């Protein structure tokens, strides 16, 4: 499976500031995803990021608040803008590794270790 790293692993930020989270994959992948996991909750999809096109955002998430870049097939960034304490969460990137998993169509998603964000 793909190896995924995220930076930073954690950060503590002041309200009103912005943080950019990086996601690096060790192989080229078409589809990358950004999720949010609020304390004690499950994962919620923020957006899908395909290389060469604008990110597609889920209901409740907007580009002004969560701008995403996808400059190539191995890298993406998510920015959390104008942060408030409600943005305190774990942010996870994932990839759909269509060609590496045997025995199926390869729809599986593989996740990075996450970025734990605390906003004061």
């Amino acid at each position, binding site marked *: *499976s793909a190896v*995924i790293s995220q930076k930073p692993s954690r950060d503590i930020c002041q309200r009103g500031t912005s943080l950019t989270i990086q996601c690096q994959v060790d192989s080229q992948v078409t589809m990358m*995803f950004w999720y949010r996991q609020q304390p004690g*909750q*499950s*994962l*919620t*999809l923020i957006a*899908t990021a395909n290389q060469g096109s604008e990110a597609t955002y*889920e209901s409740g998430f907007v580009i002004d608040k969560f701008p995403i870049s996808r400059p190539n097939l191995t890298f993406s960034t998510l920015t959390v803008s104008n942060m408030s304490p409600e943005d305190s969460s774990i942010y*996870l990137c*994932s990839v759909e590794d269509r060609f590496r*998993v045997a025995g*199926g*169509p390869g*729809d*599986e*998603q*593989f*996740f*990075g*270790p*996450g970025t*734990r964000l605390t906003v004061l």
Partner: protein
Amino acid sequence: EDQVTQSPEALRLQEGESSSLNCSYTVSGLRGLFWYRQDPGKGPEFLFTLYSAGEEKEKERLKATLTKKESFLHITAPKPEDSATYLCAVHRGKFQFGAGTQVVVTP
């Protein structure tokens, strides 16, 4: 509206005490059902994909099964290292995750 419901929310087991976790879903056009394990402070780790009713997958002490409305994750003779939150997700163009079952296995 698509829904994914996991039960129980939490499960406490003695080492060696087998049990099952449930993931029920109301999704049309299912492309797959996925099980993940998540340890505290880490991203979800992929376990299984199931595509059609009747399908079963096994990995060590874990076995996943799928029907038309639900999936079960059976844990046979669990060990303390099986303690984690187990998440299921359904795929219908995008992933939708359940809330998870937190499993604690005590020696």
